[in-house]
């Protein structure tokens, strides 16, 4: 198929469902749930399966140790200084920025917040009775081993989980406002 193949316009420009904030919140909690609540069941299931498979596959590649929030309490605080303002970034994010994207996958990434709020990686804390050590910050020595002795799958794994989170932002937008119509894009390009 050549690259000039035109994408046909969607046959129904009038939406037969009502996108909105409620759907967006549901899609944030569980990918695709917002679309399912709007009656777009097949599409919701597609989002649910794709994003969850992608996210958990990424965790599997990282030996289930690449989604976490560290306390990093002994590390220096990072500050951004745009236009003279000083903005302190919480250590948990400045030393694990990947979680800023993983967060958007919804409830699947919440165990990391729970583990961060309850356990300190510098102390030898016991496993949680329900979650165990799932999405808890691994000890530094273990992280070094994972990154140095594996076949780069650990790094590839966190990239997958990050992409899954970013894809869900588009899913949330779809639930909030419906799909971005192709025709509108074409018009914008022609005007430009």
């Amino acid at each position, binding site marked *: 198929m050549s690259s000039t*193949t035109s*994408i*046909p316009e969607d046959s*129904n420009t009038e939406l037969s469902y009502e996108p909105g904030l409620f759907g967006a919140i549901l899609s944030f909690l569980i990918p695709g749930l917002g679309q399912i609540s709007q009656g*777009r069941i097949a599409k919701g299931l597609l989002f649910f399966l794709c*994003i969850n498979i992608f996210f958990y596959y990424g965790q599997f590649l990282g030996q289930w140790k690449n989604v976490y929030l560290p306390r990093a309490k002994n590390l220096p605080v990072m500050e951004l200084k745009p236009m003279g303002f000083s903005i302190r970034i919480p250590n948990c994010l400045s030393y694990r920025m990947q979680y800023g994207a993983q967060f958007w996958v919804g409830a699947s990434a919440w165990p990391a917040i729970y583990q961060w709020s309850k356990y300190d990686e510098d102390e030898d804390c016991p496993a949680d009775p329900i979650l165990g050590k799932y999405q808890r910050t691994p000890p530094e020595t273990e992280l070094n081993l994972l990154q140095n002795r594996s*076949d780069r*799958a650990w790094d590839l794994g966190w990239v997958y989980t990050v992409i899954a989170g970013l894809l869900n932002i588009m899913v949330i937008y*779809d639930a909030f406002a419906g799909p971005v119509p192709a025709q509108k894009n074409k018009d914008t390009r022609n005007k430009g």
Partner: protein
Amino acid sequence: MNEFIFLSAGYYWHLPILIVMVSLVYSATRHDDWPTIALEAYRWGTRMISFLGMIGLFLYISTLIQ
């Protein structure tokens, strides 16, 4: 076959899931129509494969030049 030694690096085999999932989700956020979603997903899939393939080809040729 030394030319294909890069395929022995296991992480390349994880790429298809990336291409399929990203193409499908991206296309489904742009359209509601299933045939259109499938067509757009196919187009994005081929674009990504071409892009990654070009990088792979460039790296392969650069190793031959050395």
